[in-house]
């Protein structure tokens, strides 16, 4: 087995996502170059993980810019909701008025028929 064959998986071994098979493990145990590489990957990955806790502060003004954008988006959303709400109310009112008109027409028609019946007899 060659160092280059193992080099492909040493970093993955260092982060624990891959286990070396027996042949590879035997090679690493006897190969100073691969051992050194494995140690370097472990140090590298450990150091990369420590960067997670580091916060790089932005220049002043970013928070205000984000909040202004979010606020503007919120206002646009509110206006759209209001308009769509009014549209629904308008259409609802129109439907109710139509239904009421139709109902009134039926009532009037029925009454006028009833009124004509005695005359027919």
């Amino acid at each position, binding site marked *: 087995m060659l160092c*280059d064959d193992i*080099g*492909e998986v040493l*970093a*993955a071994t260092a*982060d624990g996502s891959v286990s070396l098979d027996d042949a590879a493990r035997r090679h690493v145990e006897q190969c100073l170059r691969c051992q050194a*590489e494995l140690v*370097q*990957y472990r*140090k*590298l*990955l450990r*150091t*990369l*993980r*420590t*960067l*997670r806790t*580091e*916060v*790089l*502060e*932005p*220049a002043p003004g*970013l*928070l205000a*810019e*984000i*909040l202004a*954008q*979010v*606020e503007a*988006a*919120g206002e646009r959303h509110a206006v759209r909701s209001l308009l769509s709400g009014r549209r629904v109310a308008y259409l609802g009112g129109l439907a109710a008025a139509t239904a009421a008109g139709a109902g009134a027409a039926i009532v009037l028609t029925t009454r006028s028929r009833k009124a004509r019946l005695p005359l027919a007899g």
Partner: protein
Amino acid sequence: MTAELADLVALAKEGDQQAFEELVRRTYSDSYTLALRLTGDEDDARDVVQESYLRAYRGLKRFRGDAQFTTWLYRITANCAANQLRRRTRHRHEELDEDSGPVMDADHDPAVLADAADLRARVEGALALLPPRLRAVVVLRDVYDLPHEAIAAELGISESAAKVRLHRARRKLRSEVFPGREDEQDEEQAHAV
């Protein structure tokens, strides 16, 4: 802290604007840090963060809460950063080949190498030298612990491509942070073929 963020998320999902703004206040430095690590440019990072919060605001109702809010935000930030880098590439015709990039002026003193703070500075320097598409993968995987699947989804690449990039990025980082391997050049060339 996490529970408080979860409470704020719940309120924001119900339309509480102030709750969302509080979420921004608590997380924007962290998001900016990620954006800066991914783009390597302060102006790009600012644009990315603003775009990320707008998208988070608009998509908050789709956030199901099965992941942490911050993880969800990282994914959005990664996606926005990838888009920003694509735009930058188109506009500036930046060379993104992973074999390009300046050689780090490294101090080879083993005693200095052993120092943790110095090692951290070296890693940060080496990260900055990585091409953006390699840097994005290694930052999201090894710094922010995002799974390969999520990284691939947000960067718009396949999962296998994400793994290949991660491997290349780690190799380049190692060779920058721990210089001195005589055969490194030969190996790089062999893999580039």
